[in-house]
């Protein structure tokens, strides 16, 4: 825990200063998780604020401060899930307005503005983003929390309030789907991914 239970109780009683301290303590960690869950750096802060906004208005529903962290993780996952669903709808409508050539040109223009290392990171993000796009938003988040964030099944069990076996099955299926998409990718892309790591 990054904060005392007492601080959480104070925030539950409407203490704005205590709430501020909680946000400051967890802000960096939550923003990092969101960055990996949504893969769009420009929107990370916006989603992060949404998480803490939800935290502020639902803090009184938290019965025991001991479960604060899984609960905050759950709020993060829910906010990321809502963002991804909105984003998918927005992307579908936006992309339908552009021709394929326009999309490629816009992408190339955007890519030219950043340096090579950033471009490489962007490429990896896009590659994983496209792989994770082969599963549902819910599976994408679950897989990211397990494979990228490195959360254990016990931690995931607390966040999702689902038993471990159900999580294992869901994770296995999601991973198989991503693996299949990864296997079907251009071998050059895979090789460069290997070289990268």
């Amino acid at each position: 825990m990054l904060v005392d239970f007492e601080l959480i109780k104070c925030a539950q009683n409407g203490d704005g200063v205590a709430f501020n301290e909680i946000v400051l303590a967890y802000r960096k960690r939550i923003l990092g998780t969101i960055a990996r869950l949504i893969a769009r750096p420009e929107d990370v802060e916006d989603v992060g604020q949404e998480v803490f906004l939800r935290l502020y208005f639902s803090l009184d529903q938290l019965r025991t401060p001991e479960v604060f962290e899984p609960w905050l993780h759950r709020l993060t996952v829910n906010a990321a899930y809502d963002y991804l669903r909105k984003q998918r709808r927005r992307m579908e409508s936006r992309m339908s307005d552009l021709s394929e050539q326009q999309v490629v040109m816009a992408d190339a223009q955007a890519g030219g503005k950043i340096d090579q290392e950033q471009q490489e990171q962007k490429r990896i993000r896009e590659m994983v983003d496209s792989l994770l796009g082969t599963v549902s938003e819910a599976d994408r988040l679950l897989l990211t929390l397990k494979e990228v964030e490195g959360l254990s099944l016990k931690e995931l069990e607390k966040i999702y309030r689902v038993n471990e076996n159900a999580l294992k099955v869901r994770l296995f299926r999601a991973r198989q789907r991503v693996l299949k998409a990864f296997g079907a990718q251009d071998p050059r892309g895979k090789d460069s991914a290997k070289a990268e790591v």
Partner: protein
Amino acid sequence: MSSSYRGGDERSLDALFQAYRDACQAPEPSPNFMPLLWQRIEARQNYSFFFGRLAKGIVTAAVAICLGMAVYLSVPRHSSALFNESYVEALSGGHNLDADQLHADLFPEPDEM
């Protein structure tokens, strides 16, 4: 696909996830993070406050209307003598204003036929 190749893909995928983790480092929060957060909290509070007051106003108005209706219905308004008479008294009392006309319609005078 051979199992060794599949195993290779598994490892590559794990490595890719690791690279992804490194590529998505936690961004430094901007200085506006906290002020914007509190702005959003206040905006949401104002919104909830407005709708809370609106709901209270509607409930108060509904209660007032119910009370008004109850008072209106409970006040006896049948002061007219017609409603205080019995059925037979009313019939014999000649309150039926249309009776003459009805009689005239049913039994016209012979010269009108």
